[in-house]
């Protein structure tokens, strides 16, 4: 029991279950299979982006541009399709654009050594402007039926987007835990100077993380475009970066870097999705959704701070 409490994700997991039980008591339709599926399908776009954001935050960085990357990729995929490309070709090209966005961010952050908050603030404007520019400010709605597979199709009875979330979550959770790349991410986020002295290439790791973040945002963009069916470049993914960051922080990540896991983030995303859905199902006004999520972020950081204080007290005790 004591060991269970030591696990960093413990508060968020317990809290997620408590919220689930609360909403189930409030409304019997909350825990029906249909609704569970609905929640899971609603969190897929945020979930995939959150995986990339977790790695960025692990490095002590911040990526404000994910929402604009999503808008840019979604609109360009729409454009490719209207040019007569096949859905899978358009999707691949879309991911290519995500890679380019990631390389752009990564180049300025890792190679030019400009603080990430500045670079991603700038690219947030740039990518959004490009997205609106290429779409001409109109809605993208001409997605063919074949394209809907990415957002609404099923494989072996499980929805394709959900499979993608699980695939990427497992992939990057394993990568962070068992590969040299993953260990470097934690090491650099935890203590940059020590990592540098140990001979790690900080620039290379940072660069790769931003490229991955771009790829994940573009995958999410394709699912988003296919699921929603109509994309407006100026509003698509407008608050995405804040929402996703909130999920990472609720899931136990620390903005200072070095702390956080993909599992925690996934629970953060799930919790936010449950609250969004539950407030509506339980017939509490939907206007309360944002207020509740903001309150949760503050609560998460209070818990985070308390944990840190407790741990540092324990460590001081060891020293004495």
């Amino acid at each position: 029991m004591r060991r269970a409490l030591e696990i960093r994700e413990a508060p968020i997991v317990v809290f997620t279950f408590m919220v689930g039980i609360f909403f189930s008591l409030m409304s019997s339709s909350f825990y029906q299979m249909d609704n569970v599926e609905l929640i899971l399908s609603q969190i897929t776009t945020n979930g995939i982006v959150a995986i990339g954001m977790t790695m960025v935050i692990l490095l002590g960085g911040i990526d404000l541009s994910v929402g604009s990357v999503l808008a840019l990729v979604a609109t360009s995929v729409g454009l490719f399709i209207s040019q007569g490309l096949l859905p899978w070709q358009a999707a691949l090209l879309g991911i290519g654009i995500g890679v380019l966005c990631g390389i752009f961010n990564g180049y300025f952050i890792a190679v030019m050594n400009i603080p990430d908050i500045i670079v991603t603030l700038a690219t947030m404007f740039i990518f959004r402007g490009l997205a609106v520019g290429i779409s001409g400010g109109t809605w993208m709605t001409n997605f063919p039926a074949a394209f809907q597979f990415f957002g609404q199709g099923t494989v072996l009875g499980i929805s394709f987007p959900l499979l993608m979330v699980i695939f990427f979550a497992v992939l990057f959770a394993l990568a962070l835990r068992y590969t040299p790349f993953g260990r470097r991410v934690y090491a650099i986020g935890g203590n940059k100077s020590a990592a540098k002295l140990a001979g790690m290439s900080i620039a290379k790791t940072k660069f790769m993380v931003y490229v991955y973040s771009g790829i994940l945002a573009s995958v999410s963009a394709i699912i988003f475009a296919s699921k929603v069916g109509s994309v407006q470049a100026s509003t698509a993914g407008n608050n995405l970066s804040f929402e996703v960051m909130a999920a990472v922080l609720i899931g136990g990540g620390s903005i200072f870097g070095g702390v956080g896991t993909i599992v925690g983030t996934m629970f953060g995303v799930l919790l936010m999705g449950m609250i969004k859905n539950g407030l509506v199902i339980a017939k509490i006004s939907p206007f309360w959704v944002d207020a509740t999520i903001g309150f949760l972020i503050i609560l998460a950081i209070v818990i985070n701070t308390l944990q840190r204080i407790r741990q540092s007290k324990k460590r001081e005790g060891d020293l004495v």
Partner: protein
Amino acid sequence: MSTSLLFRAIQPFRVNKMLTLLLLFAAMLVFFSTRSPYFLTFNNFMNVLNQMVEVGLIAIPMTLVIISGAMDLSVGAILGLSAVSLGLAYESGMNIWLSVIVALLVGSLCGSVNGYLIARHRMQAIIVTIGMLVMLRGMIYVLNEGRPISGYPEPFYFLGQHAIAGIPVNAIFLIVMFLIATFAMRRTRFGTYVYGLGNNEEAVRYSGVPVVRIRFTLFVLSGLFSAMAGVFLVSRLASAEATSGTNIELDVITATLIGGTHIFGGRGSLTGTFMGLLIIVFLRNGLNLMGVSVLYQSVILGILILIAVGKQKV
């Protein structure tokens, strides 16, 4: 030899950031006035001044907060909440000026919640203010359910729509505020402490400076100025809306950074911020007059951030 001579010749320009900003601003003015006959007119200038007041008012405390090594992303939401509470207070039958005071109190209260968590409990400023941003934006919708509130008495519009000797009232207010704040930063202990906080918080604390109280004051000021911006916005647009101030924090931070304030604190100035502010508002205005579509304006703004702020290394 000749290269070093050249180097020495441009040395003053390299060192003096303010001069670079001024030159950039002047070049912009010249460029736009050749492009559009309407740009260099008194009316256009006053129009731009009238529109920049909200961003400008918030940029004052934002500069101080960033100099002190923190960040406040909740200003736009505080602006929106104060604007809506002004509208609600007036609707419930309160005197309009009392409603303004209610709005200012709401803003200061939000700021003090930020300050309490960040200064007293040493929580991470970015996260606390992101949390406040999302929460307050939600509160706004809870309070007024997304409908705009309009129909204020005529005297209230004096703040945002009238002019004294051709100069908009709100622009005069903004400039007075900038002068007061510049004086406070240059001539008072408070200003010195703010720079100190950004440079070496530990050293400042050991010198016996009340670090917590200063940081707290900064966030309360940030809330208060955001509320003021909210009041001026309602007066200018004659309506309080749930979306007021959305994303204004990004404009404010952009102006502050272009003005030479260092993102990690310790360096920066209010005069720089003012120049940064002028540059972004006149850039927007000039591009509009040239007929550059809004679509590409944000691309240009983004590139400007990269160029102007790219020199700041980690």
